[in-house]
């Protein structure tokens, strides 16, 4: 169903009305969730309204109906207020596009994320090259509102759209030797200015990984949308990991390769500074980063004179769902 649109908007900027209505709005750029029709644990996709002037990301044609059909998964969603849309699309760590928080949103807008293919390798029956479109078309997408806690001690609440990681990985039929799964970001210095930097200390491409039982945990999520629309480039278009109980750098963006491995993969930050970034990187207020405390976090947006500084929770508040994965492990040693 389409509702009348203002004529002034170019067709290229129009986002399906079923997803949200773009309209002038509200205090401080806050997006307001208009939840409708809740039944049981799932309810219709949250609808968002944006302030004028902010770019929107409807995504490729084939993806729009998939996004629109997504339902909010209440069981895995927090009811905390979501971060304002402008914060979500301009406050990004995506070093492939620069080190400043606003670099990714400035420098990634012409990034090509469709068509997109993903290489699946290693200990699985169905390895090979897959088109993202094909992978997503046979999936049912859902919305999940997760807390994201950055290792730099800030956090946001973000409404993702995607599918459980386990649902995706099982399609490739990993075998019994697949103890770990590794993810690799696109390496393309032409499109990614951060990969051309002469002073960088990180090796490209960016690599992350999970233990297979972590990857199969129902909380682990693969996102292809955010805020009711397609994933913007700065947020990791077209396809990114979201592991909300781990520091944000684990949630690798713009994935082009998935490898099932017997041994623990060497992941980017851990290789760069092993004392500071562990493989597990579970959110843990009791284990400081060597250079700053992890006991608290700034929940963004945080205003200056009443800073929203809150205590950080073990596993970012998801202990109930994931603490059992680490039973018997010394989390100070395996940080």
């Amino acid at each position, binding site marked *: 169903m389409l509702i009348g649109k203002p004529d002034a908007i170019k067709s290229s900027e129009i986002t399906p009305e079923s997803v949200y209505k773009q309209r002038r709005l509200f205090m401080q750029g806050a997006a307001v969730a208009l939840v409708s029709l809740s039944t049981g644990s799932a309810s219709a996709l949250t609808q968002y309204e944006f302030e004028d002037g902010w770019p929107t990301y409807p995504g490729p044609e084939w993806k729009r109906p998939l996004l629109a059909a997504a339902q909010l998964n209440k069981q895995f969603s927090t009811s905390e207020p979501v971060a304002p849309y402008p914060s979500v699309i301009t406050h990004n760590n995506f070093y492939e596009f620069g080190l400043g928080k606003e670099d990714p949103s400035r420098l990634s807008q012409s990034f090509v994320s469709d068509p997109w293919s993903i290489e699946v390798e290693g200990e699985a029956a169905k390895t090979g090259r897959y088109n993202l479109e094909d992978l997503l078309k046979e999936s049912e997408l859902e919305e999940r509102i997760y807390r994201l806690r950055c290792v730099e001690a800030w956090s946001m609440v973000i409404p993702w759209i995607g599918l459980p990681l386990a649902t995706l990985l099982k399609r490739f039929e990993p075998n019994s030797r697949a103890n770990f799964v590794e993810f690799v970001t696109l390496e393309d210095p032409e499109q990614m200015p951060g990969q051309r930097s002469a002073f960088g*200390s990180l090796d490209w491409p960016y690599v992350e990984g999970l233990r297979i039982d972590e990857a199969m945990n129902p909380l682990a999520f693969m996102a292809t949308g955010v805020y009711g629309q397609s994933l913007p480039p700065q947020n990791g278009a077209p396809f990114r990991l979201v592991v909300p109980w781990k520091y944000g750098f684990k949630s690798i963006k713009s994935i082009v390769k998935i490898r099932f491995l017997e041994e623990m993969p060497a992941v980017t930050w851990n290789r760069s500074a092993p004392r500071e970034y562990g493989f597990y990187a579970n959110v843990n207020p009791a284990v400081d980063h060597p250079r700053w405390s992890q006991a608290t976090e700034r929940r963004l947006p945080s205003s200056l004179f009443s800073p929203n500084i809150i205590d950080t929770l073990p596993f970012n508040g998801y202990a109930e769902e994931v603490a059992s994965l680490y039973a018997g492990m010394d989390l100070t040693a395996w940080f």
Partner: protein
Amino acid sequence: MVLSNKAQKRLTWWAFFIGAMCPLLLLVLSTVVGKLGADPAKEIVLELGLWAAVMLWLSLAASTLRRRVSFSWLMRYRRMLGLYAFCYAVLHFLAFATFIVGWRIDLLVQELVKRPYIVVGALAIIMLVPLVLTSTKGMQRRLGRRWVSLHKLVYVVALLVLLHIVWMVRASYFDAVVFGGLLLLMYGDRLRFEYLKYKSKKV
């Protein structure tokens, strides 16, 4: 229009005074109009720290430039630059304590003793205090030669600041390379100068 020498001096003084304050004014302005993004706390702390270091490096550059290219003009503003470095550094610390730690004293104390880069940063600010207190012309006169020795402390302060910068490196060496490179040049020049002075005395 021809300005008298005195008026001209006064004008440059004000230009310098306001110029060095501009980064602060711009920062306040960006904060007020909400241009600092989703995490203004971090931006403010980083920006104030950057300008503290820039002012300190400029104050060091004053004597290097005088020796090297008899460019003595900056020398007149060395005190002002040093005082600005101190102001920016104190604001940098206050912003950190207010916006990042929220004045939770337990956390603040913990940060001040546990993090090497914060320890050296704090030490640098503390070491600037005696220099600030003795920065007046009166003190300079009263202390005489000892003033010169005391103010050599600034070389240690700059090294601590460089360490502070190097220990903050995460994904880019840019700041460390730029500030370190400039310091190396200035210290190298200073050492060479001292060496030549020493040699000419011996002869």
